[in-house]
């Protein structure tokens, strides 16, 4: 394997190299998870650098599991797990999973659309490293992850009110606490 093979970007001749593989992968996904896939987008028709798969929350975990281990996919590395707030549009949030295949040096993006109050299944069973990323998404956006073992704030103070990266959070919503956080006794065990 040539280690200098570039990862998919908007530069170079990436399009010719990846186009067939991408359409094959998306066709395979659509054939297998027809009920759970909302839509798929491929560059350059859609303004993105890698393919995007929009999935329904109930099919998320099985699709991620499939993409992690299936030969031909092998997206073994959860590069990033984050969210986007599209307030006031409906559905409000997009949870974004950026996947990378260390074996094949390919990237793909999985997105789930959820509304306020709905929850997304946790990806911890697929990647244990999703634990803290999901806690951060909960902290910043207030999106709940069903099946998460320890869903509490990771960055902000435990006494914080609201979720600061939401579009409707006040721009100067300072909450300064001069007294330290109290450590919960059960966390010390």
């Amino acid at each position, binding site marked *: 394997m040539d280690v200098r093979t570039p990862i998919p970007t908007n530069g170079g001749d990436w399009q010719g190299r990846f186009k067939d593989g991408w359409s094959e992968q998306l066709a395979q996904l659509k054939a297998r998870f027809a009920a759970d896939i909302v839509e798929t987008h491929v560059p350059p028709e859609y303004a993105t650098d890698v393919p995007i798969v929009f999935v329904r929350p109930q099919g998320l975990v099985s699709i991620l599991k499939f993409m992690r281990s299936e030969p031909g996919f092998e997206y073994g590395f959860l590069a990033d797990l984050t969210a986007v707030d599209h307030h006031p549009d409906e559905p409000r949030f997009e949870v974004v999973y950026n996947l990378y295949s260390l074996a094949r040096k390919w990237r793909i993006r999985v997105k789930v659309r959820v509304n306020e109050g709905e929850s997304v299944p946790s990806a911890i069973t697929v990647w244990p490293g999703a634990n803290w990323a999901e806690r951060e998404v909960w902290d910043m956006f207030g999106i709940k992850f069903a099946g998460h073992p320890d869903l509490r704030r990771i*960055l*902000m*103070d435990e*006494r914080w*009110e*609201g979720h*600061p990266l939401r579009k409707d*959070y*006040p*721009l*100067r*919503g*300072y*909450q*300064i*606490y*001069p*007294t*330290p*956080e109290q450590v919960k006794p059960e966390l010390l065990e």
Partner: protein
Amino acid sequence: MNNKDGRIDFLTTRLDAVVDLARRNALWPLPFGTSCCGIEMMATLASDYDLARFGAEAMRFSPRQADMLLVAGIVVAKMAPVLRNIYDQMGEPKYVISMGACASSGGIFNVYSVTQGIDTILPVDVYIPGCPPNPEAVMHGVLRLQEMIKNGETNFQKRQRALKGGVEIASAERPSGRSTTGRQG
């Protein structure tokens, strides 16, 4: 005291003036450097500018051994209780210098996660403007603090006077948590 030629010299003064003379010329700073202001603070301490000329070179990283808190840099909301704890742990007399725009006012970081000036959580004696202030400005701040100690203008001395007069003042108390969520603009 006996002079070399055998004459006896003496000096009359107030005790607190002598104590202040000693205190202002032996400030032991606690460097609370959180960002680029910390680099300028280090430059001030190094041999080119040499803060030792003003008796403030003995850096102590334990609040128990320091009497001048030099807050150099941005203090994020998570750091606010830590800074307040350090201030509370310092033995009196204690003086606070707020170095740079971020520590004094939040600077350019007018967002939810940043303390808008450390004077929202503890009393400050000297503010040094700049982003970051240059070493001359830091030295000027230290000299200004020495002048304030001489004139009895620091928050510590005001607090002492207020306590002697039997008056409690608000800045000695620990401020309670403030929540301004929902305030726009």
